[in-house]
């Protein structure tokens, strides 16, 4: 049974143009921000009411692209605003943070939510390495060490010292410990071949967002499943997540017009800000483990910049149209990739609250009932 994850980037879509990163915070109006956090939390609470299986968010720094420098704060609010959906923090940028703090905050969310946490362990897009002043060369090994340390902090019942390469602690004893045992499910990005294999080795869930096309996603998901078999386990359906921009309207034309405009703002304004900084980080560093991974990213980014909404609909990299159309699109995506969780992102760019909530309701009422069995 396919599940749906309502994902929110919490963008600040008040600027006409952004030409630098970090984006100066003088451009942020806190009173508007206050209103937006309320509106966005209302949308996430609505997702829980409407029966979305997961409600999720993520972490970005120094940009109106997303207002969650710490998604766990949103997670804390969601423990009180939702009662049923899984809370998918996708996720904390573990190479850049204190892993013990991540273990603690995630454990709090798990206990506060009654065991609903899905713990995203994310490496972070390149510009975050400037924001938190970390060496991109160390990205993968910091990620791997933080991963092991957090799991150990959740599962080791006795206090322990950790003599790592990047972190040293003499007395780790995480309070509270998580409610889900042995620990909350972990999800990592499976967007590159390296990360797909890593997820399989760790028996973690994997997610792919911002697809270039379904074939790219299918290939990495197959690699994940094949690697899992090599490591002696079989991923469940809901171990694989694919993320898509989503908009449902009464007609295909109406939906394409709305999402087209919203995506234009998303790619042209919100997404462009971090691009240059990201290139600085990638230039001459080992953020990517292999040249192949670097080329894959370049190709994927290139594919996004020049496509129209019609192109994206044709490639099945968005869910966009009337309820009937979106039902068929979901069937296509699930059949092609084998994903068990579709992460649907409704608040794209400058999409209004009315557009977002109307689209969510159509999705929940006229799409989901027809695709549960896919």
């Amino acid at each position, binding site marked *: 049974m396919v599940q749906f994850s309502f994902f929110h980037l919490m963008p600040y879509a008040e600027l006409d143009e952004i030409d630098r990163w970090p984006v100066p915070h003088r451009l942020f109006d806190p009173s508007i921000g206050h209103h937006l956090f309320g509106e966005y939390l209302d949308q996430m609470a609505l997702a829980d009411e409407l029966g979305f299986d997961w409600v999720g968010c993520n972490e970005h720094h120094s940009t109106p692209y997303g207002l969650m420098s710490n998604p766990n704060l949103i997670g804390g609010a969601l423990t009180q605003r939702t009662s049923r959906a899984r809370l998918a923090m996708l996720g904390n940028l573990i190479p850049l943070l204190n892993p013990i703090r991540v273990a603690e905050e995630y454990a709090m969310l798990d206990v506060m939510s009654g065991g609903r946490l899905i713990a995203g362990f994310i490496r972070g897009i390149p510009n975050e390495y400037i924001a938190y002043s970390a060496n991109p060369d160390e990205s993968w090994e910091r990620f791997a*060490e933080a991963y*092991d340390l957090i799991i*150990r902090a959740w599962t*080791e019942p*006795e206090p*322990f*010292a950790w*003599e790592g390469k990047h972190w040293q602690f*003499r*007395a780790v004893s995480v309070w509270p410990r998580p409610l889900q045992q042995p620990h909350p499910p972990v999800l990592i990005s499976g967007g590159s071949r390296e990360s797909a294999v890593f997820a399989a080795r760790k028996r973690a869930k994997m997610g792919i967002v911002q697809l270039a096309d379904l074939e790219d996603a299918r290939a990495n998901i197959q690699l994940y499943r094949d690697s899992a078999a090599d490591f002696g386990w079989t991923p469940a359906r809901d171990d694989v997540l694919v993320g898509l921009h989503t908009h449902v309207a009464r007609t295909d034309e109406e939906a394409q017009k709305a999402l087209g405009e919203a995506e234009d703002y998303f790619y042209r304004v919100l997404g462009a800000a971090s691009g240059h900084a990201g290139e600085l980080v990638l230039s001459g560093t080992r953020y990517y483990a292999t040249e192949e991974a670097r080329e894959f990213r370049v190709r994927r980014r290139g594919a996004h910049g020049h496509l129209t909404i019609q192109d994206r609909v044709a490639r099945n990299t968005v869910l966009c149209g009337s309820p009937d159309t979106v039902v068929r699109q979901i069937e296509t995506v699930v059949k092609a990739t084998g994903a068990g969780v579709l992460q649907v992102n409704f608040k794209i760019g400058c999409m209004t609250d009315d557009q977002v909530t109307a689209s969510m309701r159509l999705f929940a009422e006229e799409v989901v009932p027809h695709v549960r069995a896919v």
Partner: protein
Amino acid sequence: MSAPSETTHLADHWTTIAGCRIGYREAGVGRPLVHLHGAGGPSWDEAHAILATRFRVIVPALPGFGESTRDPGVDSLPALARVVAGFIGEVVGEATHVLGSSFGGRVAAWLALEEPAILDRLVLESPASFPQRGGTRLDQISQADLRTNESAPDRGVEQFASQEARSRNVTAIGELTRGNPPEEELLARIHEIQTPTLVLFGTEDRLVPPETGRIYKERLTDCSFALVYQAGHVIRRDRPDAFTRLVIDFLERGPAFLVNRG
């Protein structure tokens, strides 16, 4: 992995305790630190050299191991521990820190139970005291089982004895432990250890599950349990710098070992 360097007979001192002729090596000055080796027999490696810059490091070949001889009366681990106590009395002459590695950790635990007065602080490196994964036979353990960080150089590893002498180690272990059964008695008494103890495990130990460390942490009065990331069973060779940093800090600073001083 690089092969251990050529055999050199490093036991440059000898003494006789309870009918056992024991060879040992020592280096450095300072508070004494006696290292009880694992089933593979004694060696001298980079970690010893680092420790010898801060301590008087003494490494005996246990009776029956390497070129040391074992009196037939020494036929159990408690008996072996008493010979070690005699060795410490004779050679060290004062209370000493003891580092026990793998099988030597098991001997050191018995020493802490049988002769606590001669111990200052105790460090157990991957102690093989309790039932082990799959009951691995000692003669089946490969280098790959012991080491995980194969890119780490085997810097300055010197074996104490010839290959032939080392083959006797397996026999000695079998006789001292009567086929290496689970140490029920040691497990039942481990909580009696009062000596401040640091237990170290590598996160990638393939012989003794690193989770074993929690048994000591839970039961001993004064115990720290440290996980050394990406180290296998022989932590001191996979990550000599991390290993010696922990050991030196613990031995020199005691309970304040928990406080980060840079």
